[in-house]
């Protein structure tokens, strides 16, 4: 069973992914800010991280950067959810170490497809 960490401060959005993955074999763990995201990722070693770009305490980009830099989390693929705020968000996500990015608002269907690509259900 694959574990997925979703780092997102908005309860409704977390609920979407919770519902989306409830019909799959993925196990979902959640974090509500950047720092918690990094800590949880280090402890739980998930198979995939979905990281919102804008988070309290530590930005999604910075959290991504840290996970990509740390040896124990370096191999975990990260999907960064961008919000098209400014030009170059996608570029920044890639530079920070994201495996893929998805613009908000995303289609749950599309997100599930991306998850299955990066961490196929066993």
């Amino acid at each position, binding site marked *: 069973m694959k574990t997925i960490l979703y780092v997102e401060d*908005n309860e409704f959005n977390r609920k979407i992914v919770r519902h989306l993955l409830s019909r799959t074999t993925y196990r979902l763990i959640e974090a509500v800010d950047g720092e918690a995201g990094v800590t949880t990722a280090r402890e739980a070693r998930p198979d995939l991280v979905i990281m919102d770009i*804008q988070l309290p305490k530590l930005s999604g980009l910075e959290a991504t950067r840290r996970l990509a830099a740390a040896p124990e989390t370096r191999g975990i693929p990260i999907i960064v959810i961008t919000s098209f705020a400014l030009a170059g968000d996608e570029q920044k996500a890639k530079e920070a170490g994201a495996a893929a990015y998805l613009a908000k608002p995303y289609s749950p269907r599309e997100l599930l497809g991306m998850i299955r690509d990066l961490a196929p259900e066993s």
Partner: protein
Amino acid sequence: MAAHEIESRAVSADPAPGTISGQGERIPRLLLAYSPLGSLVRRVARIRASVHGKLLGAFLLIALLLIAMGAMSLRSIATVAHQSRLLDQARERVDASRQIEHALGLQMNFTRNALLLKDDSTIESMFRENNRFQDTFNRLEMGAPPAQRETIQRIRATQDRVMATVARIAALIREGKSDEAMELHLNEGYPLYREIATLVTRAVRTEEAGMGQLREGVEATYRRALLLTGGFAATSIILALGLGFVISWSFILPVRAAGEFLGQVAQGEFGRSIEVPNRDEFGELAARMNHMSGELHRLYDDQQRASHQLRVLNAELERASRAKSDFLASMSHELRTPMNAILGFTEMIRDGLYGEVPAEIQEPVTDIHTCGKQLLGLINNVLDLSKIEAGHMELALGEYLVEDVVGTVKLSLRALAATKGLDLVTAVSPNVPVCVGDAKRITQCLMNLAGNALKFTREGRVEIRVEALGETLAFAVSDTGIGIAPEQAASIFEEFRQADVTISREFGGTGLGLSITRKLVELHGGRIWVESEPGKGSTFFFSIPVRVVAEASA
């Protein structure tokens, strides 16, 4: 900001050795530094008179000296002339004296002859000589100096006695008393003759002495004239040289100081001032230059202050811009997060994630999804416009195929066209090469125009045509819709503008699409325009470079 203090450095025109530059000026430099000429130059500079006045004064001084020299010379010439005249007169008197002596000698001779011959003609000769003696005597008396008068009077008196004696001798001879006549001649006539001869000799000697003195006087006058002329000439030359030196340096020094001063001003040293002792035009010039320097200093300060304020303002603007961009980022995220939930949940409901959707609920759920998408479109438009205006819109330039762009637009709008029963036709000219630009934004532009065309057309067709005209890529979107009145054609590209408010009620839309399209086209270095006829349809054109370069989007 800190106030600039006016520095009290000064360029001085004092004749100090250091201030004089130039080659071959060692002598003037030494003279100015170590002789009284230096202070004289300062004093001349301080004279409250114009340059014209000073020069005129100097020339007049020298001219007066020359005039004085001329007057002295004239006086010497007059003295010499007078003495020459006196000399001539003295010489004449000497001549006259000698003639008198000669006449007297002749008379004595004739008297002797008369005594021997006793004829009348000889006696007549005797008297004739006497008359000539009278004429000469008058000449001698004329112009004689007072010292001679006594001698001359004594000669005349003696002569009178000679005349009387001669007359008596003549009478005696005529009476035939020869012996008495002879006796008279020897006893009275001859001694009288001797006396006159002595007197004449004395007079001649006196005159000759006077002539000697006159000659010496002439010599002395000549020598004095020579000395005076020489002295005046030398004085004139020294004065001309001195005045020339002093006056010219009293002008040269301030001019040099002004030159140096202006050089410093030209190098941006505005705080300085120039000090010249002159109270003439140069002094005035220096005062004006100081005024100018002060003004420049003030302007420089103002400019510094202004540029400082500008920097502060710039920093504030930068901060404001950063704040705006932060706000945009945060707004974008904040708006999209609930939109994500709305669209996400409706999509999952429609996908049956929560079980079979009852038939009567399917339509409202689809409506929520459609409206959510519309709302998202509006949010995207508003954010795009804000981004463009904040200068944060950056083009992601890359190679793209126009066919792909047109294909995407056609695919997205095909359903809408079909719903309205309109033909959506696309035509890309085969001459269009691979282009460079922000494909996503160009797609957005074309989508806006084609979407509008479909929106405002009830029947007929919408056509998208693209062709390359040299280095320009021309897009045209034409419809058979309601058209735009000419007076409205100009304003439709401005924000929140639709040709008519009633139109928005019927066709919807916020009026942001065209504005964003125009700005995106302009970011690509292109332009957009419309040709339309109300009731018949419109054609929107935009042209952008085939290969957009980074500068065009700046």
